[in-house]
């Protein structure tokens, strides 16, 4: 893991030359720049609190850290990647769409899709049954006394 970090740090360092040019014009990062990045992160110690709204001393330090890193020309993505390396994946507000966490994304989509298919099948089945029922003789005489039927109809009219 350390090697990974060193590699990514090297990559970041290498990209400085490119990015620095871009950021040179935009000047020193504002609080809004910091919040833009912090919004995508969660505070690594607080229970479930986004970093941009968290008020603890630790969060202030992290926001200052983001500012420092943006000031020396890191991109938003590099800052976020650094946070993941340093504090673990739990700082990401949005779980990654690759690897194991892709499950969290696709399972709801898949289940709604399956649900739609199943629902369509069920409805079709019911409709087929209705067609069969209409074709067959329905009411058997004497099943329900006519006065009850009348009342039922009245009730149904009232409630619908």
């Amino acid at each position: 893991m350390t090697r990974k970090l060193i590699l990514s740090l090297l990559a970041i360092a290498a990209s400085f030359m490119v990015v620095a040019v871009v950021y040179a014009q935009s000047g020193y990062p504002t609080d809004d720049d910091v919040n833009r990045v912090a919004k995508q992160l969660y505070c690594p110690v607080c229970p479930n609190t986004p970093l941009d709204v968290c008020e603890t001393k630790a969060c202030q330090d992290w926001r200052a850290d983001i500012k420092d890193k943006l000031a020396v020309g890191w991109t938003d993505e590099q800052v976020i990647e650094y946070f993941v390396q340093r504090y673990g994946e739990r700082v990401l507000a949005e779980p990654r769409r690759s690897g194991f966490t892709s499950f969290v994304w696709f399972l709801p989509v898949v289940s709604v899709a399956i649900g739609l298919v199943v629902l369509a099948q069920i409805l079709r089945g019911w409709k087929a049954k209705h067609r069969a029922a209409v074709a067959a003789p329905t009411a058997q005489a004497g099943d329900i006394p006519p006065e009850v039927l009348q009342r039922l109809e009245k009730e149904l009219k009232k409630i619908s």
Partner: protein
Amino acid sequence: METVTQTPTSAADERVRPNPWMRAGRWIAFLLVAGLIALLAWGVVKANNGPVNSGLAPDFTLTTFDGRVITLSQLRGQVVVVNFWASWCVPCRQEADYLERTWRQYQDRGVVFIGVNWVDTDKEARVFLDEFGITYINGPDLGTRIAQAYRIRGIPETFFVDKAGQLRAMKIGPFAPPELENRIDELLKEQ
């Protein structure tokens, strides 16, 4: 309105016909619910678990702030004190000075102190180390892996590893003299 009366026969036919899909569905439903309960059970156990406090100390490799690489399992034969801290943690400030003093006192007697800097910024961590003049090994816990292995609940938390690499004691909260000396002396006496 005439469909209020339904055909009695069709329903009866259906009831006797066993449906393999339904059966599979039941099993799946039970398995899913049982799986959820198992997951919750694991969650309960995890929530009630304290930090690890016995057995072989979970091994870790730490890259220190000055670039050295330290591996716990290579420190066998020495007593190791692993202290989790952060610059923003107020009780950590209370014990910092005491930790450093104790370390200086024991450094030549086969005792290693390791400061694991838990979720902190490098900048603030270095300021903290300078402020208290801390000289023992200190490095960031990358990805909070070490903290997870030791299941720490908060900071400061300190673990004592004996010469054989066994976890012998742990302490939640800051130290006050002479707790450290007592523990370390005890572990040093062992062979």
